[in-house]
């Protein structure tokens, strides 16, 4: 890949997602990219035919970003709890 191609590479290449050429995500029960895009502009942003503003799209992105961090934080927190239990177990055994 040339350097030129990498300068502004990004999400335009989203259209190349292989599993969505079949119209579905790899999970089978997931949603097609077209559905996601429609949800982005129609449902989640107020079911309007108007083009959402950059601020509205950013707000939408922020909600998903926070959801990812929440999943991660919950997982790490659960792990800490589980490790704490294991230490107690060792203490009891010891």
């Amino acid at each position, binding site marked *: 890949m040339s350097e030129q191609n990498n300068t502004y590479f990004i*999400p335009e290449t989203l259209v190349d997602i*292989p599993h969505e050429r079949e119209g579905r995500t790899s999970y089978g029960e997931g949603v097609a990219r077209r559905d996601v895009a429609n949800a982005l502009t129609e449902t989640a942003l107020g079911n309007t035919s108007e083009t959402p503003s950059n601020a509205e799209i950013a707000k939408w992105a922020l909600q998903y*970003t926070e959801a990812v961090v929440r999943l*991660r934080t919950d997982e790490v927190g659960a792990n800490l709890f589980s490790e704490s239990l294991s230490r107690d177990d060792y203490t009891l055994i010891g």
Partner: protein
Amino acid sequence: MPNVFKKALDLLVGTDASISLSMPKKLRPFKQLSERELIQLESEIGAKLFGTIPAGNRREFFCLDRSTWIWYEEWVDLETGKQKSATTRYEIHDNGILKAQEGAHYSFLEGEELRNLTVAIQMYYEQVARKIYKRDPRTGQKLV
């Protein structure tokens, strides 16, 4: 923001070369994955959202924190044979999403690029929720 780039690079390269991206080793029986290891797993999914990664390239795409996404790509320049890399940081602000590239290139995303990134963020959430955290992305409930 050099600290953000350093944090991102630490996450990408890491300080412990023994950690495998695909199957992190459990150091102790009850030791689970750290935040950094979880981000590495998420990034494996994130990188694939944008299609096939060309042979010899390395790509990372992940959520760094509550408002930052990182795109990292390594490739070999066919003309010089040298390895190149580029890091792009996306910051979510109230008025839009700012793209920051090395060399102090800053610009707010517009149009299709903004829309595509947002769709990618949604897909990232849905896929890591199912594949890594085993949760239904719509309800948040644990998948059986």
